């Protein structure tokens, strides 16, 4: 039985934009299991980054609860709250923006160590910094320890920000688009290093990306959660989702992405959307938010009820989907466009 380390229940999050209220997340329910590879994917504005921030406790939900190791994080105070902060770390997308340009690598890693009293004295700090750099494959360590961010390449900077996240010995790391700004040729190396960290340090990694192929590689033995306009629309085992996506949005997404193989990508069937316009979060359509674009839209059903994330009636796999016709056990029928 998988043991959840973080659990989100009925999480909503609104943002105020002028006088408008933007519902960025609506009714998010899922658990992150200990040591699993979980990937959240979706297009811009789907709420994946906000979900990441909420998991880390950087942002409180508007309503709903987040449990970390069985404890509601909203009830944590003082030392417990600090422990949670240390335990769940986030790595940002842009290593340029997230590293202080005036600090050397050793300062960047040393300060949090000292601030959280995780090491003793100068010698302890030095040896821990070297250990961390070694963990993220920045070797020989001496070459990097006194460098400033601008003296490092994009990939190296991202490794430093990973090392910084590791200073507090977290049990969960949220990696938000952590490799998307890195060149193709070194992207996979970074990802593999992060995947190795799980076994070496017993850390659970949640990977947030817009790139489904990358998600598939990262979470091959884990799970993928697909988000659309603030809701989780499908979550299940990666191999299931890639081979047999259930939710219409996931199907369309997978069919739209070109493949790095000329013959495959040219013969790929692209499912046509009914509309290319993405609804604004402030003017979401009634019922399922995807229904105005959905090729399998069922009038009178999809535009009425908001679908709940659940296992479809006659499904043999444990993928959960938020889709009204699937919920009822109907077969999806393609619309004539």
């Amino acid at each position: 039985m998988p043991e959840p380390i973080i659990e989100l229940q009925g999480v909503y999050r609104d943002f105020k934009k002028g006088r408008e209220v933007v519902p960025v997340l609506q009714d998010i329910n899922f658990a992150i299991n200990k040591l699993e590879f979980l990937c959240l994917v979706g297009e811009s504005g789907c709420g994946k980054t906000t979900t990441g921030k909420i998991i880390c406790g950087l942002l409180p939900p508007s309503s709903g609860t987040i449990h970390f190791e069985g404890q509601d994080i909203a009830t944590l105070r003082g030392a417990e709250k600090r422990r949670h902060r240390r335990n769940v770390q986030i790595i940002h997308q842009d290593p340029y923006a997230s590293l202080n340009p005036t600090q050397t690598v050793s300062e960047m890693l040393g300060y949090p160590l000292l601030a959280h009293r995780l090491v003793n004295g100068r010698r302890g700090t030095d040896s821990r910094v070297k250990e961390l750099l070694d963990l993220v494959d920045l070797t020989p360590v001496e070459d990097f320890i006194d460098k400033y961010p601008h003296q490092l390449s994009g990939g190296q900077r991202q490794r430093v920000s990973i090392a910084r996240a590791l200073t507090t010995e977290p049990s969960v790391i949220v990696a938000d688009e952590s490799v998307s700004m890195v060149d193709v040729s070194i992207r996979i190396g970074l990802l593999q290093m992060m995947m190795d960290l799980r076994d070496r340090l017993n850390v659970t990694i949640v990977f947030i990306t817009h790139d489904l192929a990358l998600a598939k590689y990262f979470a091959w033995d884990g799970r993928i959660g697909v988000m659309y306009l603030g809701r989780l629309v499908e979550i299940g085992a990666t191999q299931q989702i890639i081979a047999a996506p259930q939710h219409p949005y996931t199907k369309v997404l997978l069919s739209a992405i070109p493949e790095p193989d000329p013959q495959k990508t040219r013969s790929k069937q692209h499912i046509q959307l009914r509309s290319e316009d993405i609804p604004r979060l402030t003017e979401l359509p009634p019922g399922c938010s995807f229904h105005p674009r959905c090729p399998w839209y069922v009038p009178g059903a999809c535009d009425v009820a908001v679908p709940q994330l659940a296992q479809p009636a006659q499904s043999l796999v444990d993928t959960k989907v938020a889709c009204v016709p699937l919920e009822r056990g109907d077969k999806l029928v393609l619309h004539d466009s």
Partner: protein
Amino acid sequence: MSDLSPETVLRVDDLSIVYRTDRGDVRATNNVSFDLKRGEAMALIGESGSGKTTISLALIRKLPKNAVVTNGHILYQHKNKVQDVLGLSRRQLRGFRWNDCAMVFQGAQNAFNPVLKIRKQFEDTARAHGWTDKDAIRKRALSLLELVRLDPERVYESFPHELSGGMKQRTLLALGVLLNPQVVILDEPTTALDILTQRAIIDVLNDMQRQLLFSIIFISHDLSLAAEMADTVATVYAGEIVEIGGVDDIFYRSLHPYTYGLLTSVPTLDHAQDVLQSIPGSPPNLIAPPSGCKFHPRCSFASDQCQVEGPLLELGRETHLAACWHKDRLLASRKEVV
């Protein structure tokens, strides 16, 4: 010059470009040569800083001020007339731009003047190239906007900020072919767009090329896009074309370890697990590039020869060229794996 075959619309011949900077000369493009045929779609793939954008900017002579073309020609053939783009006068160059060769830059978000309506920007473009009849411009513009699947009347009378990112990108594509250019350069045409918008742009581009029969040079770091759209693929590394060939040759029978390395570092959506590997090291500093083959510090096939002598781009198979001393070893090693 006269050996240009009638199908060749553009020939880049031994082009070298240097950026003069305070820290030294950056050799951004070195002895680059290729031919672009009529109706052909060519992809320049490579990492950021590889020099692919420099090559494309040189084609319309829009290089930054500190760039110097140190060698080479860019020949453009249209209606049996051959011109060297690098030798055009200011006036000729202005006429050449957009009318013969249009460039759709990366990031269409800011490609339009925010204070002018789309209509005005179409009209400005057409008038600068001698069109006078407003109605004719309008008719052509509306038909192109329809071709890129937009609501033509509405978009034509809009201000840029009233359009979404994907709509702007499509409008820019329509504007790009307004004057019926022979060559359209696309710089990262789908980067920064959402997946479904990317799909729409790719489909629109394919439609447009089928109907208007122009040639495309597109620059991308996205191999999947190249696989889907290109007829020919050129791999650019450290300012050089290290491999060029038909899309199938490049993807299924690559001869250069760098191209192969790129291909094995890209995840797929196949139903099987990917076995991937990054290329070790990072791209070279172009102020002081490595000796010999510039890829040798990162290459697992590198020998002593590679450190000393740079390989030339030469024929590997029919129309498939690669610059590598060890083409055979790469092929042999791949047979073992398969």
